[in-house]
Every structure is written in structure tokens, then in C-alpha cells.
């Protein structure tokens, strides 16, 4: 069942088209991520879903509730859409306590006082901030502030929660941890979410499905592993950092007609020298021990190539490389 339907949404700012005829569906209880470089229109689309921007034309509905329908000149203001929103800069009201911040959407929905109290305690518990209810936001760390923001978005049980780069203000360790937490909360509450980011790792952390956007269009849609294993073209492969991209002529056995070949890092192996297999010779540029393996950068016919190795290599050393043919992608 689709929880959010977007049909033919278009938006121009002056002469530039920001969104061109976008159509998307988000399934109930799933997390969809809009991923793309800055200027691709992902944030505008999110703000249009929220009602903070007005599209030029199109249709948006959450379940039975129609947000936008240009055919009927219908446009619901944001305060009537019953959504949750998690902002990059948290958007917490500095004059209200943590509990009052979270209670605000419930008050707006005219929830009885006793129920507000119960629900606030519930979501505070869920984001592990029960002890901080009376504090002002300024007393909290960045990660805590973002968890309050998430609790506020969850509080009124909205049909949909929108995340605008929720992790990008946090440092790397916290990012991973909070990303996991958001996924887990979304699953726990069966919450449908739309997330926006320019960071592929954030997208990997936080998505059931990813929409890769470019120049106001959906470039590719799929589950994270589909996107990263099979990017639709060299641009997508490069943006997703899906692996090494080499010109076809330096890769032995390339399909005729292909101009560029995607070689996933895990598809590159050091030739062990005993077997004579078709491969390439490369010169090691650097070899660093990262996580539990060696990340090696080597030069092949003037192109840098990244691979993983189980032993250290010397810069300047010549090595033979083999590619797992099945993993290679040929772009024409």
C-alpha cells in the first residue's frame, strides 16, 4: 500500500526548472531517501511535500488525504498536513523545554492534557531522553537535540515524517549511531519516512529505497544495494562512489562498444603470479591500513584504481591485478 503518492510535480524558480514532472510512491512503513548533489531539487521536493514550498503543478496525497492537486487548485497549508519534520539545524524552540517542544504538535492537535503527558513520556523514552524533559534545548548536545527533534516529529503520530539531512550536523560516530536509531524507531512505530541527503553513506544508513536525483529528475530508483551494485550510468557510479571507473581500452576483455567500465573495489584482486590470467599491471601509489585491511591505490595506464588487499604493498612496487568479470559494469 502506498502511503505517499507524488504525481507530476514540477517547480521552476524563475527561468530554472528545479523539479521536472516528478512522480514517486512511498510504501507505508518504509523509508525513502532522496539522494543527489546540491541543486538537484531534493530539498525543494521535500519542502513541497511538507507544504513549505508551493509546486507549480502536480498532485500529492498521503493515503486518502490530498495535499496538492493543481487540477482542482487545491493546496493544503503545512499546518493542516499532519506531518513530522526533522530539520538539519534541529529547529527546536529555544524558549520551550524539551517536553514542551515535544508537546507542541499535540497541543496544536487539541489532544487532551493527560494524553499529552503520556505521549510525551512515551516518545522521550523511545529516544532515551526521559531524564532531560525539563531542560531547555541549549543544555543539550547536538545528538540529543536531534533526538528531541525526532521525538517531536513522532509525537503526534503523523502519517509521514520528513527528514532534511538529519545527520549532517553531527560528527561521524554519532551519525552512524543516530542513523541506526532512526531506522529502528521507524520500524518500531511503523513510521513512513522520507529522507533527504547529499551523503551516500547517510543514504545507505537510512533507506529502504533510494531515489537518486539529478537536475530535477529521478535518475535511478532502487534498494540501496541495487543502486550501489548496478548504477545506471557512469555519472551515478561516480556520485555513489560505487567503485573504480576506467576507460574501456585499459581493461582487458571489455565489451565492444563500451567506453567506461565500473570495477567495484571488491572485484579487484592481486594476481598471485602462479596462474597466467588476463589482467593488468599496476604500480602501487599508496597502501594504508584502514579498518581491518589494506586500502591500496594503484596506477593503471595513468588512471588511479582503488582496491583492498590482505597484506601491505610498497609504494612504487609493480603488481598484477585481476578483475572478477561478473562484477564489472560496462557503460557505453
Amino acid at each position, binding site marked *: 500500500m502506498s502511503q505517499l503518492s507524488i504525481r507530476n510535480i514540477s517547480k521552476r524558480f524563475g527561468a530554472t526548472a528545479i523539479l521536472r514532472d516528478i512522480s514517486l510512491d512511498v510504501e507505508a512503513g518504509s523509508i525513502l531517501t532522496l539522494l543527489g548533489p546540491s541543486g538537484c531539487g531534493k530539498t525543494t521536493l521535500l519542502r513541497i511535500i511538507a507544504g513549505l514550498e508551493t509546486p507549480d503543478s502536480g498532485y500529492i496525497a498521503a493515503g486518502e488525504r490530498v495535499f496538492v492537486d493543481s*487540477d482542482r487548485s487545491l493546496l*493544503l497549508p503545512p499546518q493542516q498536513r499532519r506531518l513530522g519534520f526533522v530539520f538539519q539545524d534541529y529547529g527546536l524552540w529555544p524558549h520551550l523545554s524539551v517536553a514542551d517542544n515535544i508537546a507542541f*504538535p499535540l497541543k496544536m492537535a487539541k489532544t487532551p492534557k493527560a494524553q499529552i503527558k503520556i505521549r510525551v513520556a512515551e516518545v522521550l523514552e523511545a529516544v532515551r531522553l526521559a531524564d532531560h524533559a525539563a531542560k531547555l534545548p541549549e543544555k543539550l548536545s547536538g545528538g540529543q537535540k536531534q533526538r528531541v527533534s525526532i521525538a517531536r516529529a513522532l509525537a503526534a503520530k503523523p502519517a509521514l515524517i520528513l527528514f532534511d539531512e538529519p545527520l549532517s550536523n553531527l560528527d561521524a560516530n554519532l551519525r552512524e549511531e543516530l542513523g541506526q536509531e532512526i531506522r529502528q524507531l521507524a520500524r518500531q512505530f511503523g513510521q513512513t519516512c522520507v529522507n533527504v541527503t547529499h551523503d551516500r553513506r547517510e543514504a545507505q544508513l537510512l533507506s529502504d529505497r533510494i531515489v537518486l536525483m539529478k537536475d530535477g529528475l529521478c535518475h535511478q530508483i532502487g534498494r540501496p544495494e541495487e543502486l550501489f551494485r548496478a548504477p545506471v550510468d557512469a555519472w551515478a557510479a561516480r556520485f555513489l562512489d560505487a567503485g573504480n571507473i576506467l576507460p574501456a581500452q585499459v581493461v582487458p576483455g571489455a565489451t565492444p562498444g563500451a567506453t567506461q567500465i565500473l570495477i567495484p573495489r571488491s572485484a579487484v584482486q592481486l594476481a598471485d603470479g602462479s596462474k597466467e590470467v588476463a589482467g593488468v599491471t599496476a604500480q602501487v601509489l599508496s597502501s594504508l591500513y584502514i579498518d581491518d585491511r589494506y586500502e591500496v591505490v594503484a596506477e593503471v595506464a595513468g588512471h588511479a584504481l582503488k582496491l583492498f588487499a590482505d597484506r601491505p604493498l610498497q609504494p612504487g612496487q609493480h603488481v598484477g591485478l585481476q578483475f572478477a568479470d561478473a562484477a564489472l559494469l560496462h557503460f557505453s
Partner: protein
Amino acid sequence: MPAATLTAGAAWQGRSLRPLLLALATLLMLTLIGLPMLAILLYALFPQINEWSLAAPFSALLPNLMDAQLIGATLNSLSLSLGVTLLSCILALPLAFRRAQMSTRQGRLWDALLLVPFLIPPYIGALSWMQLLQVNGFSEQLLGFNLAGFLYSFPGIVTVMALHLFPMIYFATSKAFAVIGNRYGDVARVFGGSPLQIFARIHLPMVLPTLLSSGLIVFVLTIEEFGTPEILGSRFGFRVIVTAIHEKFSDWPIDLPGASVLSLILILLAFFAYRLHQRLARRFSSAVENQSLAAPARPVSTAQRLIDLLLFGSAVTLAVLLPLLTIGVSALLDTLSGGLSLDNMSLRHLGGLFVRDGAAWAAISTSLTLALLAALGSVAIAILVAFTVVRLRTRGTALLDFLSILPNAIPGMAVAVGLILTWNQPFWPATPYNTPAILLVAYICLTLPYPIRMLTAALKQLPRSLDDAAYISGAGELRVILRILTPLLAPVALAAGFIVFAIASRELVSSLMLAPPGVETVATYVFHQFDQGSINAGMAMSLVTILVSGSIIVLGQRLPGSRQPEGKTQ
């Protein structure tokens, strides 16, 4: 699928207040500021507009523009303003330069003292100089000489006004000297510059934009000042634009087209000076932004310290001590004829202010009530306008933006004329004219730029996500304004309210022009007491005014939300 286009705003379903808020803000600003300005313009162009006739267009313009009196008044206004600006610069520059070399503690003391002239309304300052220097004034009684000849002359007016206004330039310029720091001077010294050369070739050119831009503020304040030219200038037939307008209204037959032509000239002069000031101020702030402040204070020699003491001491004596002492002593004298003697001291006049049912007490309570209402009204309108201009940013906000900066450059006299021309018309079903409400309208109109500037700046600092989060939580525009933004802006709003209160509680020109018969404010009371020769009663009221508005301003500046607002003080 080609879809119908959503036009912004028109397609909103349900209860969006945006168009309504924009309309309300625009309507308020148009009524308060747009209408009076329009009235002046229309009257100047179409002298019979009050009969809904566009007959004889421009018939008033040319004769008035050729009028020798008008030309004389305009030239007087210009030369007075230039003279005051020049003298203020001359007084302020050495003080500002030395201030930047001083230790923080010593500098703060002088700064505090030089803030005092802002607390003395200029008309009260002028009256105190009269008490001091006139024939048989305090100087004659104590020292045996009077300077009446000097006081009632062009150089006399220039001096009195410059002594009141030079701190404006002093504060701006000493800040600029401090920003520039000693580094550039040190560099010049290494290359063999003498102190005088360094000042003239390095420091002076660098502070010149600030000097000019604060000088232009002094120019605007002088050209719109009524009290001092009226009090001192009328004794030797010196007429400026503002006093000429006053005459047009007080001499029968009242010459409305003539007054509006004069007002138009006044507005244009003030407006251009103000725009020039803004441009210069912007340029300087961008030019020195990336300079570092670092430069240790240099030890000061004893001789230099003595010179500083002499310099600042005499400035403070002239601009602060003498006027304040004169006011204080006059307020305590029983009768003017009794002269300066201990037998003649009494608290009669001060006590008389607080007699219930007395005229003085009525004036005080009128002023305080109106000032309080003006503070509330001005701040409330400013919150609405700031929200509309900063947050809605639709097409209509450009007009609002313009209307909100307009009163910065509109002299109080022009506001008064505009309000008279607007509201003294038979076709209004109801009018504030001839009721105390017209004073409230005038005060709000005059003070609006302060809260609007302060609140707009503060609102721009608040991230937009605070509003967006509230909308998404289900709050409408009114709730966002009342429950989110107003509490967050409260400290700034309070500080702005204090400034409005201080200005409104002592405003002279529009009060004098607009107060209905039988209604006195503090300022008109002082002014009329002098006209009637009850100088000591007037001075007693002045003393209380200075103390009240002074403590309000000091209180306002200690509030967390306050920042020294750039611009005019009245």
C-alpha cells in the same frame, strides 16, 4: 500530463492568514506613514485638494518656491545644519582620537558622561543656555558678564546645537578609531612619520567615511530641530524651514499649501542626507570588517594625560555640567527675580509638579500614558511588519520595506503637518484629530523605525526552521507569531519599547502642533511655561523629564536585547 498551474497564495485552502497579515501590515503602514506623506505631496501640488479639486495644479508650488521668505528659511536651514555639522566634527574628532588611545576604564567614564547630552531634550538645553548667558543670567550674577549678544546670533545657535549633538559623531568616530587600531599608525612610524603626519595621512582618511556618515546624522537632526531655532533664533529674526512651517500654522490665515511646500523641501533635504548616510555607513563597515583589533595600548605620558583631562574636562563641562547645573539650580529657585541666593531656594516648583489636579501633573500623566501606549502600539506594529517583511517575502513587502524606513528621514514637523493635512478633513466619519489620539498616532509614526529596525534584525537571526517546525506541528501564522516568535523576540521588543517610551515622553514638535486645546504634554508644558515667563516651573518639569527619560533609556540599554541603535535620538 499538462496540469493546471497553481498560483501562489490564491490556491491556499483553509485558514492561511498570510494575505490577511500582509494586508493588515500594509494598511497600518499606509495609514500611519503613507497617508500623511501623500497629503503633503498632494497639497503642495494641488492647493485645492481639500475640496476634492485638482484645480490650479502647481499654482502654489512656484510662488512659494520663489518666495523670499522660503528661500531665506531654506538657506538658513542649510547653513545652520552645515555649521552645526562642521563644528560638531571639529569638537568630536580630537576627543574621539584620544579616546581610542585611552585605557578602557578611563574611556568608559568619559563615554558615560558624554552620553548625558542625549538625555537632555534639545529645547531644554537651549532654555538652560538662555538662563546661563542672558542679560542678568547666572553668568552675570556670578561672574559679572553676559553673552546674550553671542547666544542670540548665528554662531551662538550653531554652538549650542553642536554642543548638544557632537557626542553622536564622537561615539561613531571613536569606535572607528578603535577598529582601525594602532597598527597602521605603527607601520607609518616605522617609515618615519611624525605624529601629526600619521594622524593627517593615515588615521583621518580611514575614519573619514564614519566621520561623514555620522556628520550626516547630525545634519539631519539639525535640519529637523524645532526647539532650539525657535527659542534662540526668534530673538534675532533667524527663521529656518521648521520654524517657518510653525509660523504658517500659527499666523492667520493658515497657509496649508505653503506649509506643505516647505515640508516637502524639508523632507527631501532630510531624506537625501539620510540616504547618503546609509550608503557611507555601509561602505565603511564593509571596508574594515576584516581588520583585526589587535594592538596593545601604548603607555601614556603624564603630559598627554593632562592634555586629555583638559580636553575631555572642558567638553564635559560645556556639554553636560553647565546645562545640567543650570537646569537643576533654576528648578530650585523660588522666583527668577530673586536671583542666585540661598534665601531664594525652594522646592515649591518641584513639589508643584505633583499636585493632583494641577496642570503639571496632568501634563505628566498625559505624556506617560501616551508614551506607554505608543511603546505598546509601535512595538506591536513593528512585530507584524518585521514578520511580514522578513518571513513572508511576497511581492507586497517591497512597499512595506520602503514605508518602514521612510520615517527615519521624515522630520517631526513634517509628520505633524502631514497628520494635520490628512486628518483635519471633513470627509472622515471619525478622526483622531483634535483628540489626544492624534498625539498617539504622531508618536507611533515618529518612533516606528526604531522597533522595526531592531526587530527586523533580530528576526533575521532566528532560523527559519523555528517557524517551519511550528507550521508542520499544526500551528497557523497567528500562533507562530504569538507563541514562537514573540517570546523569542521579547527582550529586543522590550528594549525597543523603552526607546519609544523615552522619545515619546518628551517629544516637542508634533506635540506642540497637534495637541488639542486644553491638552498639555510634558514638552508643551515646559515650552509654554517659558513663553509665560514661569521659567522656574518649566525648569522643574525639565529636571523631572531628564531624570525620568534618562533612567528609562539607561534601563533600556541594560536589557539583554538592546544594542545601541544606529541613528537619531531626539
